[in-house]
Structure formats: C-alpha cells, structure tokens
C-alpha cells in the first residue's frame, strides 16, 4: 500500500518534470528539471529493489552528466529560445500528434503483453530473488558473464576521452 502511494507520487513528479524539460524556454531550467526527473527515477529504481542502480543513477546521471550539461550551457551563455516560425509549416502540432500516436502504440503493446499468458507465471518471490548484498552479486555477474562487454565499454570510454580532447583543441 505504501509502495503504491510512493509509486504514484514519484511517477507524477517524473512526468511533470519531463514535460517541464521540453516546454521551458530557459535551458538552465530545463537542465534543473531533468535533474529532478533523474532523482525521481532513482527513487523508482529503489522501489524496484535495484539499490546499486539507484546509487549509480544519482552519481553518474545527476552528478556527472548533468553537471557537464550545466557547464556547457553556462560556457556558451545562451539566452532563452526565441519563438520563431518553424521551418516546416505546422511542425509543432504534427510533432504532438505523432507523439500521441507513439504513446498509444506503446501503451497498447504493454497492456497486450501484460494480459497475455507470456507474462503470467513464475511470480518472483521478492525475498528470495534479489539478495541484500547486491553490489558483489552484480560485480560477480559483470566480471564472469559480461566480461567482454565490460572490456569493450572501457575501450569505448577511452575513445570518448581521446575524441573529446581532440575536439577541444584549437590547433591539432
């Protein structure tokens, strides 16, 4: 019961802050609302018994990525967006209509899956499933079964660092 109340409150905060991200004029306010959205998602991960991912969400997304966004916004020193005419006639109403179509398609797929026999059965027992010491269990999975994607990801981060430094240099 308490979980349901918590879910509805946090879900409402998440949706309202996401809508504020796309409708605010000032990009700094967009970034702050996005941080609020990430924190709400971290609370949802806690409700889903994913403690390590909730901590990583705050550390990586709200703590590193959004700080980088705010640095770049303030570095470029932009004002609010000017309301100019759209390059295509009627672009915004068309975007809203397509978004509504996408939402209806996604929700109908989810509800059809939820009512199908594929989703029933094998109800996870919460107490026995995901253990308390999640960090070592996830670490064991990561280094035993997922070691190849892990090493490739470290290579990807190295390439990202080199690329960013090259882009920032004025004379190569």
């Amino acid at each position, binding site marked *: 019961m308490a*979980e*349901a109340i918590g*879910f509805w409150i946090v*879900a409402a905060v*998440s*949706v309202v802050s*996401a809508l504020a*991200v*796309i409708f605010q004029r000032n*990009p700094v306010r*967009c970034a702050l609302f*996005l941080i609020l*959205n990430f924190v709400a998602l971290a609370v*949802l*991960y806690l*409700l*889903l*018994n*994913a403690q390590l*991912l909730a901590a*990583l*969400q705050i550390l*990586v*997304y709200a703590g590193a*990525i959004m700080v980088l966004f705010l640095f*770049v916004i303030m570095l*470029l020193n*932009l004002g609010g*967006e000017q309301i*100019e005419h759209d*390059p295509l006639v009627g*672009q915004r109403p068309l*975007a*809203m209509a*397509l*978004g*509504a179509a*996408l*939402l209806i398609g*996604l*929700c109908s797929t*989810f509800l059809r899956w*939820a009512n199908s026999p594929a989703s029933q059965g*094998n109800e*996870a*027992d919460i107490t*026995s499933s*995901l253990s308390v010491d999640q960090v070592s*269990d*996830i670490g064991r*999975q*990561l280094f035993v079964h*997922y070691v190849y994607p892990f090493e490739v990801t470290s290579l*990807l*981060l190295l*390439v*990202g660092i080199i690329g*960013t430094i090259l*882009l*920032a240099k004025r004379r190569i």
Partner: protein
Amino acid sequence: MIGVPLEYYLILSGILFTVGVVGVMIRKNPIVIFMCIELMLNAVNLTFIAFSHRWASFDGQILAFFVMTVAAAEVAVGLGIIVAIFRQRHSIDVDEVHLLKG
C-alpha cells in the same frame, strides 16, 4: 499481487520516452535536444530495471549499467561537438546547421 503491477512501470516508461521524442522534434536548442535524448535513454533504463525486478535476475540491471556508461561517453563527445560548432558560428540553432560544409 505484490506492490505495483509491472504494467504501470512500463506505461510510465512509455510516457517518458514519448515526451523525449516530442522534445527532440519541437526544440531548436541542440543542448535541450541532447537532454531529451537522455530522457529517452532513462525511460529505457526504467524498462530494463522493471523487467529485472519481474524476472528476478540481474541481467536487466547490468544492461542498464551499460546503457548508463555509453550515455556518459556519448554526452561527452556530443557536447564537445556542440562547443566546436558554436566556436565557429557563434549561434546555436539546429535549423542553421543543415550543410555539411562548415
């Protein structure tokens, strides 16, 4: 039924993903467009973790972990590109950057 049914998390994830898609389509500032892309990635992360909770396995959480890592690398490189473009043109408007030649 224990707690909140899974469909609610999936529908919330669908709503967040759609908000991100609409944001990419209607905004002109490339940094805000980038933020809407991050919103989409987070919606997909929520789906992964919801299913990981449903089937009681760590695979969804590990996939979400990799999505976070790739998103961090992508944000670094993407913002570097935006800053490089701004250094040349001194204006940020996605509609103006429509030719490959600088």
